[in-house]
C-alpha cells in the first residue's frame, strides 16, 4: 500500500537555511546538510529545498550545498526557486536533485514544463502553484504570492499536467501562515481535476491538521510544511505515529 508522504521544506539563501530553526543537538542550525540529515533520520519521506537567492554567487553556493546534501541523504530531493529555463533544470539535476519544482518560471513560459518533461520525464517536473481566492475564484499568483496573474487556478493546473507536470504542489495563500489547517476546499478542487499526485501546502498548525487532511481527502498524496517542523512544534515521528493510529498508511523508519 502506497504511504502518505511527509515533506519538510527548507528555504535556502546563499547556501544557508533561513527562518530560524530550533532543534536541540544540531551543531549548525543553518546547514542544509545537517538539517536535511536530521529530517531524513527522523522519517521525512522527501525534502524540498527552495532557493530564495537572488545573486549568481548565491546560486553557486546553493548548488554546492545541494551536491553535499545529495551525497549524504538518500531520499528524494526536490529543488525549487529560480527555475526559469532548461539550464536551471540541468544545473540542479546534475547536483543530485530528483525533481524540480517550477512556479513563476512556468507562468512566464508555460512551455518550460513541456520542454523539461520531454527531456527529463514527467516524474521530474513538479508544478508548484500559489493560489488565492479573488472574488470567490481561485487565482494563480506569481512572484512568491505577491502578484495576481488573473489566471483561474484549476484550469492552469490542469493545463500544467497536460504539458507534462508529474506532480502538483498546491500552496494556498489563504491558509498559509494561519496555522488553522490545510485548505481542504481548494485541495479537493485540484484533486478532482488532475490524476497526478497532489501535495498539500499551507496552513498546517499541528498534527491534527495532517490527520484531517488525509482522512478528509484520501486523494491527497503528501503534506508539506516548513515552520511547524523547523520550530519543533511537530516532530515527524509523532506525526507519523498519529497518522498510523488513524489508519493512514505511513512509512516507518
Amino acid at each position: 500500500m502506497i504511504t502518505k508522504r511527509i515533506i519538510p521544506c527548507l528555504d535556502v539563501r546563499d547556501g544557508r537555511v533561513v527562518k530560524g530553526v530550533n532543534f536541540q543537538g544540531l551543531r549548525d542550525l543553518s546547514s542544509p546538510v545537517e538539517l536535511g540529515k536530521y529530517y531524513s533520520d527522523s522519517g521525512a519521506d522527501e525534502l524540498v529545498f527552495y532557493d530564495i537567492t537572488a545573486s549568481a554567487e548565491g546560486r553557486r553556493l546553493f548548488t554546492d550545498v545541494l551536491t553535499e546534501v545529495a551525497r549524504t541523504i538518500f531520499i528524494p530531493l526536490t529543488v525549487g526557486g529560480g527555475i526559469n529555463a532548461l539550464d536551471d533544470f540541468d544545473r540542479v539535476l546534475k547536483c543530485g536533485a530528483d525533481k524540480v519544482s517550477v512556479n513563476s518560471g512556468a507562468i512566464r513560459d508555460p512551455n518550460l514544463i513541456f520542454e523539461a518533461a520531454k527531456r527529463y520525464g514527467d516524474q521530474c517536473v513538479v508544478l508548484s502553484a500559489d493560489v488565492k481566492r479573488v472574488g470567490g475564484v481561485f487565482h494563480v499568483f506569481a512572484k512568491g504570492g505577491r502578484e495576481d496573474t488573473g489566471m483561474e487556478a484549476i484550469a492552469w493546473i490542469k493545463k500544467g499536467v497536460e504539458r507534462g507536470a508529474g506532480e502538483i504542489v498546491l500552496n494556498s495563500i489563504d491558509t498559509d501562515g494561519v496555522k488553522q489547517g490545510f485548505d481542504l476546499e481548494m485541495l479537493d478542487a485540484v484533486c478532482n481535476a488532475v490524476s497526478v499526485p497532489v501535495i498539500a501546502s499551507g496552513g498546517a498548525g499541528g498534527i491534527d491538521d495532517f490527520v484531517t487532511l488525509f482522512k478528509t481527502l484520501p486523494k491527497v498524496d503528501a503534506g508539506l510544511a516548513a515552520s511547524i517542523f523547523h520550530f519543533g512544534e511537530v516532530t515527524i515521528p509523532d506525526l507519523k505515529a498519529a497518522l498510523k493510529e488513524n489508519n493512514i498508511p505511513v512509512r516507518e523508519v
Partner: protein
Amino acid sequence: MIAIVDYGVGNLFSLKSSLAAIGAEAVVTGDADVLRKADKILLPGVGAFGDAADKLRATGLDAVIIDEARNGKPLMGICLGMQLLFDRGFEYGEHAGLGLIPGEVRPIAEVIPADYKIPHIGWNALCFTENKSPLFRYIKEGDCVYFVHSFYAANCADSVIANAEYGALLTAAVQRLNVCGCQFHPEKSGRVGLNILRAFCEEETIC
C-alpha cells in the same frame, strides 16, 4: 569493484554516492573492459524502455553485459535498468530487452484499478515471496522503498522476489541466479535501500 554502467541514461550521481556511503568501491563507466574486470555490475536507467535499449545497444555494452551475466557475474538492474533485463518491453511500441530474465514489461494501467494514479510514485512496502532473497538479508518484510514507474515486469512469476501492493501486486524486485533487479530506487530509499545495495555488494552474497 562495482561497475555502474554509464550509457547516457539518467543521473548516476545518487547511485554512486549511495555506494560510497556503504563503503563499496564503485566506478561509473561506459568502458567494456572495465565492465569485464568488475566484480559486479549495476545497470541503472530512467526514461523510456525503447530509448534506453537503443542507447545501450549503440554503445555495444549490451553484448558485454549479457556475456558477463551468462558467465555468472552478479548483475543488478535498477528501475528501467531492471526492466531492460527482460525479453521485451511495451512502452511506445514493442522493444527487445536483454533477455536475461524471462518476462515482459507492460503498462501498470493494465492491472491496477482505474482510480489509482499513474505513475506509481512514492514509498510502498515490500512483500517478499516465499523464499527470502539474500538481497533482503538486512531488511524486513513491510519495509518501504521509493518507486517511480508506469510500467511493470509481467509474466515473470518464477523470478519475482518481492511485490508491492498498488491495487494489484506489482513486481518490485526480481532475481534469477546471479541476475537481479529492483523496480524501485534503492539509492533513494533511505536506510532500507542502502541495506539492499550493501547485500548486493558484499562479496559472499550469491545474488
